[in-house]
């Protein structure tokens, strides 16, 4: 594939997009793991939401 004299601009655009999308995906995935871990810790310590108390 020949990208011509402006190949650097085209490749930079695709690289920047890939980087931003990858960063967004990683941030959302890491945030999910962090929230799951925090919830797990709290439940292990016996903390329950009101809607989950009394066997509800």
């Amino acid at each position, binding site marked *: 594939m020949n990208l011509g004299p402006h190949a650097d601009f*085209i490749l930079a*655009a695709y690289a*920047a997009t890939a980087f931003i999308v990858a960063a*967004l995906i990683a941030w*959302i*995935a890491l945030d*999910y793991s962090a*929230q799951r871990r925090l*919830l797990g810790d709290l439940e292990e310590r016996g903390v*329950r939401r009101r809607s989950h108390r009394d066997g509800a």
Partner: protein
Amino acid sequence: MPVIDLANPTRFLRIVARVLPWLIAATALAFAFGLARAVAAPDDYQQGATVKIMFLHVPAAWLGMMGWGLMSLAALGTLVWRHPLADVAGKAAAPIGAAFTLICLITGSLWGRPTWGAYWVWDARLTSELVLFLLYLGVLALYWTAEDPGRGARAAAVLTLVGAVNLPIIKFSVDWWNSLHQGESIFRAGGSTIDASILWPLAIMALAFTLLFFTLHLAAMRNEILRRRVRTMQIMQAQEQPA
């Protein structure tokens, strides 16, 4: 299932768990197909191979605006109907919309240099797009720095609705003012001016980016619901501890 059932966060999380794997697969498939078509697309007769930047720039611009439109609907849900998931939807969409707007600005700049001879000009379209990005940052600052999440959400909702005025300005800026940016060439009376060999890859990439947006939005909404549960449980734990 009635739509109102989606207002229940627990039920919503169950639906997200079922839908998300399918959305991820569809997004990956659409990107694989779209990128293959983008690579194979012919050069433009004037712009040469730089037209390939359009396959990123145009969908990112659309989704940056769609993100704000979605946030505006969510803001109405927060302020008027106090829908339990409206604020969650608005807060989850903000960083994603900001990221797509940033992609639009960067790719536009990299497309502008070989096409116009400048990375940036204070043109109506470019400036209004930059304003959209700054508005996104403002909303994120309100969400992330407010001590009381409820008050932060209401302030963000008001700013979102005020900022919605910018959407038609972006859309019609190329018609209202003399602009270096090209005019409407896709959705116009008389049909698109883009050849089908370039229009189809663009359409597939737009579909892929849209699927990516909704995949990330659902995942971010799930995270936000979990974050609120953690916060509630931490408050309850603090209240139960003996003084």
